[in-house]
């Protein structure tokens, strides 16, 4: 069976064009981090795509729907691991008749701190989704109730059957095989699960930093800033757990973390800020961890919505999975908005 969650509801604004020739013609070879990605680039884009200016009529609602894509994915992964099933129809904003998909893969989180923290994050993600929906769909800003502004969950790849061409296999699979000589197993091997959710959390935290600072309405700004704080704290806690596990003999986690940071950096080779892996750095005050990525001035990183989508959706050309979102993001902020189809 497919491990994809129910296809998204029709949504004209968010349906990406699937014109193959268009996509191929603009496809560029992209610098790949560490040679980890077999079978083509994780991200393919063009310099021209990166200079396309998105429409200037985006509203706070559009930004909320943009981040909801991230929350649906993360909540699904946490729920699948902790509860053995993904999100219910009501949480996904889908008709009640839509079944809740079970996670058919065995889940083996033996570290109680990791398991408890994933549980905590699951409830936080569900609170973000419910909070946005409660505010946007029930008369926010004086609108009458029953105006549904929030997007339903998009199609998501949750890697139940270890599909060979999804985001997990492309981002993690080749690297894990190269370093450990085994297959990547999202739910079966605790370390694999940790690096996957940390990779995605780092992207979510940087996505939030960009969109939070765009908000000029104080009420919306409060919502984004509040969740930004949660996401960055969670990102640091997961990276801290990676740092702790990296001390175990034979661990390649430092290398893995740095290679994944390079992969994330590939979304924007032009940026001055290069993403950083968890590692140990030398200072004259002694060794220091590098758990929180910052630049020399202590500033943290942000990612534009386009950079986020290039990492999570890639470019949905034929025979490429769409990484973690096979049909792209739901909502107005999607790759098609940038002319990337």
């Amino acid at each position, binding site marked *: 069976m497919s491990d994809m969650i129910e296809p998204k509801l029709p949504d004209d604004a968010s349906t990406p064009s699937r014109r193959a020739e268009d996509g191929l013609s603009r496809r560029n070879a992209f610098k790949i981090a560490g040679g980890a990605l077999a079978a083509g680039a994780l991200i393919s884009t063009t310099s021209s795509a990166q200079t396309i200016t998105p429409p200037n009529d985006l509203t706070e609602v559009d930004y909320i729907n943009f981040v909801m894509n991230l929350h649906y994915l993360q909540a699904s992964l946490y729920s699948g691991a902790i509860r053995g099933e993904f999100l219910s129809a009501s949480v996904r904003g889908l008709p009640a008749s839509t079944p809740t998909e079970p996670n058919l893969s065995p889940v083996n989180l033996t570290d109680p701190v990791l398991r408890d923290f994933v549980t905590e994050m699951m409830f936080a993600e569900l609170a973000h989704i419910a*909070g946005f929906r409660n505010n946007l769909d029930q008369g926010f800003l004086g609108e009458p109730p029953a105006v549904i502004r929030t997007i339903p969950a998009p199609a998501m790849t949750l890697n139940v059957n270890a599909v060979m061409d999804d985001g997990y296999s492309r981002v993690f699979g080749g690297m894990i095989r190269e370093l450990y000589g085994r297959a990547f197993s999202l739910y079966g091997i605790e370390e694999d699960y940790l690096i996957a959710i940390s990779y995605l959390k780092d992207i979510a935290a940087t996505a939030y930093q960009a969109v939070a600072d765009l908000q000029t309405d104080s009420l919306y700004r409060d919502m984004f*800033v509040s969740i930004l704080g949660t996401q960055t704290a969670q990102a*640091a806690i997961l990276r801290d757990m990676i740092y702790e596990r990296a001390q175990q003999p034979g661990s390649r986690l430092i290398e893995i973390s740095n290679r994944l940071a390079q992969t994330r950096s590939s979304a924007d080779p032009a940026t001055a800020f290069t993403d950083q892996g968890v590692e140990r750095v030398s200072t004259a005050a002694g060794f220091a961890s590098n758990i929180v990525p910052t630049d020399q001035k202590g500033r943290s990183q942000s990612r534009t919505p386009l950079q986020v989508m290039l990492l999570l959706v890639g470019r949905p050309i034929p025979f490429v999975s769409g990484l973690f979102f096979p049909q792209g993001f739901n909502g107005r902020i999607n790759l098609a908005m940038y002319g990337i189809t």
Partner: protein
Amino acid sequence: MDEDLPAIALDPTRRRLLYGGAAMAGTALLAACGSGNGGAIITPPTPTPTPTSTPTPSAPVGTVEERDQLNLALNALYVEGQFLSFAVTGQGLPTAILTGTGASGQATGARRVTFADPRLAERFTEILANTIAHIALLRELLSSYAVAQPTIDLSAAAGPFGAIAAGAGFTSPLDPYADETSLLLGSFYLIDVSVTYFKQLMLGRGSSARGTPEVAAAAVSTLSTKSAHAGMIRLGVYRKGLLSPDVLNQANAISDFRDLRDGADSLDQGITSSGSLNLTPTGSFGGIFARTPGQLLRLLYLQAPSNLTISRGGFLPNGANGVLVET
């Protein structure tokens, strides 16, 4: 320092810890920071070239209201930075990043902590480095408007940590320098306090919620990084709590103490909540809390639970420097 784990070779284009970027190149920060037991913090191998050794001060950024809010953040970072600096290196912050307007004071009462776990020492060194960078970042924005470090009391039993321990109902005093577990608890108090104020910095200011872009950009970065630090500290406390439940009880009592002292609002949560792990304290929509300037000051002054307005005490015996000094 132990050598059992090879340090990753640094890519020269990557950031360096414990020195600022261009803004701080050529200043006395590192030299000052490194004066003593082999601890020259870091000499950048190839520092960003600067035309002169004394950068021309730029005009302060932002509105007066924004600068006053940033100056209060700077007061809080002085406290936190000195606490971490003494705990990690045995020395205070470099004096070059402590100058400014208002009454300049010394930080006293702290001392170096002996770490049992070198990995934990590395985490504290990282947090110290980020905090120093944030102090420099805010000072760069504020320029001539930046406040000086006020008098800071970091002493244990006889000082603010004794008051926290007593207020939180500890059966023994809290000496945050006694060992790494105690340091985690002391850090837990201070860092959770500053996170909530950094969130406040990001919120509405008059007609434009974003405010001056440079100020907003600095606020969003410091909030992100400080929130990350808070997560690391809370995880560290929890790890100790798995070995000794008393540690968790103490941390949760410190959270209750903050909640009681900052005013009527419930703005704090422990590391466990009803027996469940709670590494990220969250309120509505699963987001973090914010504290107003007055609430921040109540927790730095260690105000008794009353509605009186006070302007000094606790970590800041002579009060904060700047305009926002009353609870």
